[in-house]
């Protein structure tokens, strides 16, 4: 999500400050967050970066706590998937608890989601039985109303007891009677009819629950982007993004409700550290790379926090390819992480292009080799006798390496070696 997109959400970033009533006040202000997924491994990255990404998820708790204090909220509700899985080591279990314990002035209400569902003898059993929760942390593992101390509010939790459920876990809220003076806040994890069909869980929640169960607010987890799916019904999104899927930044929601029946005022609060972005760029010459650079810069003004997957498409004249390679190298060094896919980038090289290359000038043998490579790449020249060597090697490996890709790569190498030879002999 770009900064522009966030602006377009039409939310008043300052609105959260208005409902800062505390302790016994009718107005209720709290922070809605979800999908912390503590303990998520980032195996697709090298260990160093994976460590940083994991640490950033823990740090997000601090940022949420700080945001709560800034907005006068005295409690935080976490709508499931506090943890990434159910078989975490105790140290991993304890780490977020310690972060929450540090915010002793806040009460943290947690429910199990589909990643950390409350199985018999499972993670939550261990949390409650063995680890002993901090006093300011409440694990809501049963579907029963939980009063919020010092507030005219009651939380109706819908904890998940399995990865998939056949029924709507919020259904019980319809018949749950509470003091009419209390704000009813639903807390649930799952996909919603008509939205989030691609959500992670096989749990479906009816957004009509808000009206039927007379909820002032239904806090949802599971969808990692921030989204209002119905009036008074929001996905907070994850506070620290964890994949390239939607190019979302991390947010929590500051929610203010003036009293039972009053509308909820919802304000996204940026909590993410790293920015995950996916970009497709079409290039026709080395000059187009400037535009791509500008587009990348728009994701964040701190490139060291950017994780980018860039698919470069189009065609580059062979003469420009080295400039592109240099640009790619610079980009990879500048960003926290860059994956640059050039599968769909064609090096435009024909006989004329090759002849025009200064590095191959006066070397007709090298030019002939280059032409043969182009023929292989374009599938027009057939494979050379040399292909026996290549096909032998290809046969040895279970990879998607094609003769065309080999020829492309060889062409780039040939030009680079010819340049090095030319420069070396000067």
């Amino acid at each position: 999500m770009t900064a522009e997109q966030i602006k377009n959400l039409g939310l008043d970033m300052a609105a959260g400050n208005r409902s800062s009533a505390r302790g016994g006040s009718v107005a209720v202000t709290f922070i809605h967050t979800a999908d912390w997924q503590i303990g998520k491994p980032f195996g697709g990255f090298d260990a160093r970066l994976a460590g940083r990404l994991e640490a950033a998820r823990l740090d997000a708790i601090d940022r949420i706590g700080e945001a709560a204090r800034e907005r006068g909220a005295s409690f935080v509700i976490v709508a499931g998937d506090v943890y990434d899985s159910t078989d975490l080591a105790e140290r991993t279990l304890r780490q977020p608890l310690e972060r929450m314990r540090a915010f002793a002035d806040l009460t943290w209400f947690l429910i199990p989601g589909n990643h950390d569902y409350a199985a018999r003898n499972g993670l939550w059993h261990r949390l409650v039985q063995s680890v002993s929760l901090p006093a300011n942390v409440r694990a809501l593992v049963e579907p029963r109303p939980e009063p919020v101390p010092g507030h005219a509010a009651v939380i109706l939790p819908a904890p998940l007891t399995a990865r998939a459920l056949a029924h709507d876990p919020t259904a019980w809220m319809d018949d749950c009677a509470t003091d009419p003076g209390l704000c009813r806040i639903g807390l649930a994890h799952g996909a919603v009819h008509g939205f989030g069909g691609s959500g992670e869980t096989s749990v479906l929640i009816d957004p009509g629950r808000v009206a039927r169960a007379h909820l002032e607010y239904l806090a949802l987890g599971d969808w990692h982007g921030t989204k209002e799916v119905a009036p008074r019904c929001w996905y907070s999104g994850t506070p620290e993004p964890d994949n390239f899927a939607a190019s979302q930044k991390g947010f929590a929601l500051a929610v203010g409700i003036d009293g039972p029946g009053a509308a909820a005022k919802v304000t996204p609060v940026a909590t993410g550290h790293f920015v995950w972005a996916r970009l497709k760029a079409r290039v026709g010459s080395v000059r187009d790379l400037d535009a791509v650079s500008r587009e990348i810069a728009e994701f964040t003004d701190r490139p060291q926090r950017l994780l980018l997957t860039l698919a470069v498409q189009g065609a580059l004249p062979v003469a420009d390819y080295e400039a592109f390679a240099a640009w790619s190298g610079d980009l990879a060094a500048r960003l926290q992480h860059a994956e640059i896919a050039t599968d769909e980038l064609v090096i435009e090289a024909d006989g004329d292009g090759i002849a025009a290359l200064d590095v191959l000038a006066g070397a007709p043998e090298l030019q002939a080799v280059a032409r043969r490579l182009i023929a292989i790449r374009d599938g027009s020249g057939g494979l050379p006798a040399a292909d026996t060597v290549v096909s032998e090697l290809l046969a040895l490996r279970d990879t998607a390496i094609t003769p065309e890709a080999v020829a492309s790569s060889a062409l780039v190498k040939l030009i680079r070696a010819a340049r090095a030879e030319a420069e070396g002999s000067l």
Partner: protein
Amino acid sequence: MKLRAIRLAEVGIFRDPVAVEDFSGRLDVLIGPNELGKSTIFRALEAVFFKKHTATGKDVELMVPRAGGSPQIEAEFDVDGVRWRITKRFGRSRSAELRELGAAGAASPAGGAGAGRIARGADAEDVLVELLQLDASTSGRFALLWVGQQRSLDLDIDPATGRPRDRGERATLRNIIEQEIDVVAGGGRLRGVEARLVAELETHLQPKKLQPKKGSDYEQAVTRRDAARRELAAARDQVAAGAERVRRLAQLTERHQAELAPAILARLAEQSRSAHERREAAEKSVAEGAHLSERERAARLTAEKAAKQLQAFDDDMTAAAGLVQAEQEVTAERQRLVAEVEANARLLQSATASCERLRERERRASDAARRAAETLTLRQDLQDLEEKLASARQTTAEHATVVADIASASATAERLAELDEACRSLALADAVAAPVSVVFDVLAEARHRITIDGAPASGTRDLGAGAVIAIDGIGTIRLVREETPDQARLRAGRQSAAQEKAKLLADIGVATVDEARDAGRVLVRRQAQKEKLEARLEAIAPAGVDALVHARDEVAARLEPLLAAEQATDPEAGAADSVRADDQSPEAVRDQLRIAEGERERIRSEKEALSSRLGGIGARAEQIAADIARLDARLGPVAVRPVERARLKALSEEAAAAHMKAIDERKANQSSAPEPDALAALRRHDDETRARFEALSKEAQELSLAIRGLEAEIATAGEAEAGRTVQRLEGECARLDTQVRHYELEVVALRLLKQLIGEAEKANRDRFLEPVVQRLAPYLSEVFPGAELRIDEMFSITELKRAAAGEPFQALSDGTREQLAILVRLGFGRLLADAGHPVPLVLDDALVFSDDDRIAAMFKALETAAQHHQVIVFSCRAKTFEALGGHRLAISPWRSSARVET
């Protein structure tokens, strides 16, 4: 470059300064004997041009004369039309000077002061290098063409390694060739690029293998990827095991609650206890029933025994009564039978007597019949014998008559035979003394005029003892027989035979021979008759007539008593034997006898049956008496028998009552005790209930343990974070796969490039050698017409191709190899000259192995080459080299004032 002069002082064998000065610049030839110093001059040339004057070491030491000194060498040469002189001194007094002498071709400036630039010391060396375009460290192209003694075979072979020693010759050639073909080719850049690619490939792969190089990033990526895959598989197994544990825990917990809760176990325990009680009660009742059955059985046996005793007593009583009656009946029967036996005995006696009588009669009848038959036979025999005897007697009489007739006959066979012999002898004698005949065939009108012995002569007439023929009117003819001795003997023989014949006829009693023969035929008939009679007699009486008489007498003697007996019995028989009167043949008597004997046998068997019956009656009577005695013993005296029976009856009735009572008691128990099936069911139920309770109790315990164990395992497994590990490793595997693929792509691309460049290079190589081959061609065709030479990229000769057949260079003869090596150098020289860098070709004692033809051709080649660049030839073979054209050089003393005085 062209060499113009060389001067030496204190070099090698040259103690005194010498000079060779009048080089033509084309073909210059120095001929001289061994040890003239040609090789010294050659080495001096190398030293002055390519060795720095500051050089030390073995090469320099070799130049110093044995007596010591400081080698000084001076050479004059033309480069680009300018003449130069280089003077170098080696050793302690080392120095160098390069002097420009002015335009080449001007009057020899030798000895004169130079007109141009002068450089000394290191400057001289530098300018020289520049002038000759030498690589600072090598003799370069000069080394190609300056061929020392025995160095002609290859560019230069290092004796230590056996490999060509490169003093920069190849690089020089390459440079020259590349300069030439650069116009159309990329030159060394292809090799440069290839070298870079190979270097890059070698960072990834093991040399000559497709395996990642040890320690390379590629190898590390593969290793890490493979390790991650293994870890992932293990982690997945762990996750699966974890899931299985959780599933199992849920299953066990559910089962524990559903089937093994304490309340369920308590209910089961109660069921088990109740079943056991029911089983015990039933078993007790069944045991009592068995006891009552036993009692009933005993009572029944007692009652049965008492009833049996009573019955036996009654049976004995009945039997005793029956026995008395039977005894009476047996006695009556016995008496009747005795009477029957007696009557039978009488009948048997009568029958036996009758049989005896009949047997006697049968014997007599048989004897009479036998005698009658014998008499009849003897009578017939007697008659036959009488007849035979009569016949024999008649035959004997006839025989006697015939014998007498025969005896009286005179015409015996012997006499007749003698007569025949006499007749034959007479006939023979007549034949020998045949008479002479005269045959008269006289005309009829003359017949009466001729007579013989007075008779008219006609026909044939036997002469006999002679005759007289008279012919009327003519006279007589007397025919006389005169006898020879033989004729006399024959006539005597005839007379004897006629006498004998007459005597015999008289003996026989006949007049003629025919009569004698008739008498002989009668005698033969008598003889046959006699034999016939003898045969008949033999048939009638083979043993003779006397034997017949004897036999007849014997039969008559045997017949006589019989006839007498017949006559004696006949009258008695007719009166006394009545049976005979009743036609009593022996057969009829025998029939009567058989009937009588049958009757007797019947009576005898009747007797035996009666005896047997009588015996049976006796035994029966004894048996009855014994039975009566036995029963009496059992029953006791008749008086106490009623009392005993009353006692037995009372006992029986009492036992029967006891039995009935036992039956009632057993039946009462039977109605209350369970059936065997029911009891078995109760037992089974008890066993099953107890087993189930025990099994479930045990299972509950085990299940509790298993649940606690699984809970512990799950807690531990949770600590291992298998799920998280799988997630991490999946990502890692994907990342490492990408990395490995990247390296694989690199490697394949590099190999493809290497291959393509290799192919391009090969194509280039062929083009590359072309300039050398082209220059070589005219020289080669001069010595080896039609041959081709193969040269490799190291400029070494590999093969000589003649008449379409290739011969490896090393397989060629020394002479041919040397010639080829020099020809190649001519090619190189021509190439250098064409490139504008001409270098003199210097041959020191070359062509030592060549034959006359080859050497002539080689000389021609050298002469041709000299048209393009200078060729300098040193040789010790004056005669051979006379044919070589060119300018002859001579060694002369070095008299130049420029010589540095030592």
